[in-house]
């Protein structure tokens, strides 16, 4: 260090320009600066008089009389300006605002301080392990969930056959829908489109003819067809009314008139005579019932022709929903596959609206409350598309809410914002920020700003990544689902505002009690979690209990946005119920009724207002505590 010009040459110590250390241990206690008391009564001390002192003070200090603060010694001291006098010169305070240039206004200074504190806060986060741990875990969780989503969307959804006409119930190789069209039985594998069949002509107890006989009795023939139809030959067991099999036929016993073996249903009486029970035989001869009351059928056997079995898929998703989206037109729907129109006229109008084969949409206050279809109309729509859409929407709504809003939205502020002021208290470095010409409320607000400067970009980045993945992998005709952008924007707004509110609340807890701040915050976080889970139940939501939580309002932003962006969700839910699809349950859980008002847009605005209001309230509470706190 260079010796300074002002250094006193005799002492080597710096010249003291205006030293005035004074004390008045005896002056009357007065917290408010009062009128000057009698100076002579007040002892005061000063020392090291220097020629540079003002004359008045110099005179007072002319006799450097050091002293202890012993009352006895006070009489010998020279009084100088007392504390009270000094205080009197302080009030009234002469307020003189210095002229500031436009570039140096209060606002630009606030601006500079704000960026300084916020920047400092972000840099400080960067040096903390907890920041990286929270960020890393958050990213990993999001990526994990996204892989599940992509996996789910890559699955080919097996389509559901709502009306069951795609199934081959009797195993004859033809789907039920095709059998219905040909009028063959869907429960008898011997009857199928193009199959050979028995054409009934009449009931008899005895007849001599050339034809086909079906029933129980004695058949004496001069010609008989010993072949069996191919479908019967293909299986190893016998059905009622099957053609008799002539191979390995057993003989009937001599003395027992009407005995026939149950399994084969036929036995030989003579070379040109057989006895049958419940079987069919074709030939030329006389067929006689065993008893006079027991009749048999007579007719002719029509040989089959080849009919190509249709693929099952033709009878799945063959009758989609034909809804034109017009809420004022209750008459909707169209029988695409004709299975309603082929019903008897009496069965074609089961919903009773006077129009055969349609779907009745019942609308109240602009919302579809019920859908009643006629039988076999729109009964088998393409549910794979529907289910994928439902899965996609449910994913965004649930993941946006639970994943981003509740999990990240609570945990990131809990771990990163609680210590905004608290950690500085604990580490004893807070005074660096506070012993500066900056209000404590400002420090608090700018620290919050710094937290947001870290948390918001991080969360928005995660949401953006998620929205890109769901946009490209989600169901839809185009390459990217642009329609979801509004929904993700809603989620981002909800997350940002929720994180802001939580940060203000948690940081305030940290200020109110540096010692128990983290504990308070944890308890509050648990409360919010409870409210979030309860809020997923319609009944609890409507009861209004959850209105007292940040999570409700954040979730309501997502919910309202979902109602506004995907305005056909209610219809989808109703249609799912009316046509008996799966996925209606998922829809019901995801699309909660708008609350507290019935209008999503009102709820959206209300939620944003409430969250911002809560933030301001807690910042105000926090700064009020902060302002009164001593920084030890």
């Amino acid at each position: 260090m260079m010796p300074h010009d002002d250094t006193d040459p005799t002492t080597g110590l710096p010249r003291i320009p205006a030293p005035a250390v004074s004390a008045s241990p005896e002056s009357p206690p007065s917290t408010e600066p009062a009128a000057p008391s009698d100076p002579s009564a007040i002892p005061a001390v000063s020392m090291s008089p220097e020629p540079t002192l003002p004359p008045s003070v110099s005179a007072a200090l002319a006799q450097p009389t050091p002293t202890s603060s012993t009352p006895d010694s006070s009489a010998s001291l020279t009084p100088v300006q007392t504390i009270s006098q000094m205080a009197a010169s302080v009030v009234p305070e002469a307020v003189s605002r210095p002229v500031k240039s436009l570039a140096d206004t209060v606002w630009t200074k606030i601006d500079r301080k704000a960026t300084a504190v916020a920047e400092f806060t972000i840099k400080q986060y960067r040096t903390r392990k907890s920041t990286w741990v929270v960020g890393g875990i958050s990213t990993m969780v999001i990526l994990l969930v996204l892989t599940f989503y992509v996996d789910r969307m890559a699955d080919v959804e097996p389509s559901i056959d709502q009306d069951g006409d795609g199934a081959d119930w009797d195993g004859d190789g033809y789907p039920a829908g095709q059998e219905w069209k040909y009028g063959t039985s869907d429960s008898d594998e011997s009857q199928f489109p193009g199959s050979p069949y028995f054409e009934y002509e009449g009931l008899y107890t005895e007849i001599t003819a050339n034809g086909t006989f079906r029933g129980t009795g004695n058949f004496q023939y001069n010609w008989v067809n010993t072949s069996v139809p191919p479908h019967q030959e293909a299986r190893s067991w016998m059905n009622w009314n099957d053609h008799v099999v002539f191979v390995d036929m057993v003989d009937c016993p001599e003395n027992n008139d009407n005995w026939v073996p149950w399994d084969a249903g036929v036995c030989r009486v003579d070379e040109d005579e057989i006895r049958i029970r419940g079987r069919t035989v074709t030939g030329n001869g006389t067929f006689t019932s065993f008893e006079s009351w027991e009749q048999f059928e007579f007719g002719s056997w029509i040989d089959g022709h080849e009919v190509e079995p249709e693929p099952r898929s033709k009878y799945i998703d063959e009758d989609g929903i034909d809804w034109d989206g017009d809420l004022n037109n209750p008459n909707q729907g169209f029988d695409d596959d004709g299975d309603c129109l082929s019903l008897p006229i009496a069965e074609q109008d089961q919903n009773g609206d006077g129009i055969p084969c349609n779907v009745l949409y019942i609308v109240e206050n602009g919302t579809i409350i019920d859908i009643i279809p006629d039988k076999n109309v729109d009964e088998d729509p393409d549910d794979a598309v529907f289910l994928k859409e439902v899965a996609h929407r449910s994913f965004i709504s649930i993941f946006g809410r639970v994943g981003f809003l509740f999990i990240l939205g609570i945990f990131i502020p809990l771990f990163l914002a609680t210590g905004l002021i608290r950690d500085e208290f604990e580490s004893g470095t807070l005074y660096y920020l506070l012993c500066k010409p900056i209000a404590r409320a400002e420090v608090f607000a700018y620290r919050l700003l710094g937290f947001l400067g870290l948390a918001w970009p991080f969360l928005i980045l995660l949401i953006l990544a998620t929205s890109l993945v769901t946009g490209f992998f989600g169901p839809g005709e185009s390459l990217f689902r642009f329609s979801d952008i509004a929904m993700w924007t809603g989620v981002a707004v909800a997350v940002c505002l929720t994180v802001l509110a939580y940060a203000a609340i948690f940081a305030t807890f940290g200020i109110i009690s540096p010692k128990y701040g983290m504990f308070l915050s944890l308890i509050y976080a648990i409360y919010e979690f409870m409210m979030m889970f309860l809020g997923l139940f319609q009944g609890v939501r409507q009861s209004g209990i959850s209105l007292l939580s940040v999570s409700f309002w954040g979730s309501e932003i997502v919910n309202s946005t979902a109602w506004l962006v995907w305005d056909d969700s209610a219809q989808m839910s109703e249609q799912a119920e009316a046509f008996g699809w799966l996925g209606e349950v998922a829809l019901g859980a995801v699309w909660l009724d708008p609350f507290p008002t019935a209008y999503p847009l009102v709820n959206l605005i209300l939620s944003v207002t409430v969250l911002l209001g809560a933030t301001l309230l807690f910042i105000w509470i926090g700064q009020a505590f902060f302002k009164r706190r001593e920084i030890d």
Partner: protein
Amino acid sequence: MIPDFSQTGEAETQPWQAVPEAPAVMLDHVSKFYGQVVGLNDVSLAISGGVTGVLGMNGAGKSTLFKIIVGRLKPSQGTIRLFGTNPFKNPAPYHRLGYVSESEKMYDWMTGLEFVSTLARLYGMTREQAKSEAMRVLTFVGLADVVNKEIGKYSKGMRQRVKIAHALVNDPDLIILDEPLAGCDPLARTTIMNVVRELGAMGKTIIVSSHILQEIERITEQIVILHNGRLLALGNLHAIRELLDHIPHRILLRTPEPRALGEAVLPHQDVYGVRFPNEGELIIETNDLSAVHADLPRIITESGVRVTAIENPDDNLESLLGYLLEGRS
């Protein structure tokens, strides 16, 4: 209701600029209690200009006094005025204040330059201003070559100097240094003391605390002595000591020939006795310490005795306090 961002407090009107003629620091019957423990007891004090040393044992209330002055603590009783305003309610006087706490805690992850310039921006400086001001004060305290090193890697003396630099960055009128020399090696002490002296020479009001008398002595003569939270004495250090002249002072000399030296010293008019407490030690008892000290080098040279050390066992805070407390009783 909007947050009270300006923190202008209740009844007081607080100017952004403090009243120019108000004393830098004024305490009126200030007491501070920590529960049952008294931190500061009825202290009245006004300080304006010059370098003032606050002396006191550990726990005497030096840091409490400073924390009240800078508004970290609120006095339990009494009034504190920093440039005429209440520092606990109004951050405006911080524009003119530089404060170095006794706390060792710093943002170790920052470089010295970052630390000083970041905090400088809280005075409303732009980024560039803050950086150049930070460089200026860091150069002033002699840290120009390590400004880009992290504070965590600094030595204790360097850390103290960074703290001092950060307190100087706003060119304050009042600088409060709480134990700036604590824990520093001799070289760092010398540097810091030079910095403080230089600042005093610049006309700043400086209040510096220490529990080591010699340190304060090398910086200033104006002292305030605190003991158990009470203002025990204030004034010129040497004057205070001379006031205690009737109490014998002792000078301890270490020499291989204590008796020979004792004989040489005894004739001095102010020496009234010598003692030989241990082997190789000589204690001179006197009523006028400065007079004996003035003549001692000559006596030693004339006697030709080799002296290895001269100590003033009484010349420390404990004995000074002892004298002062005895004087009161």
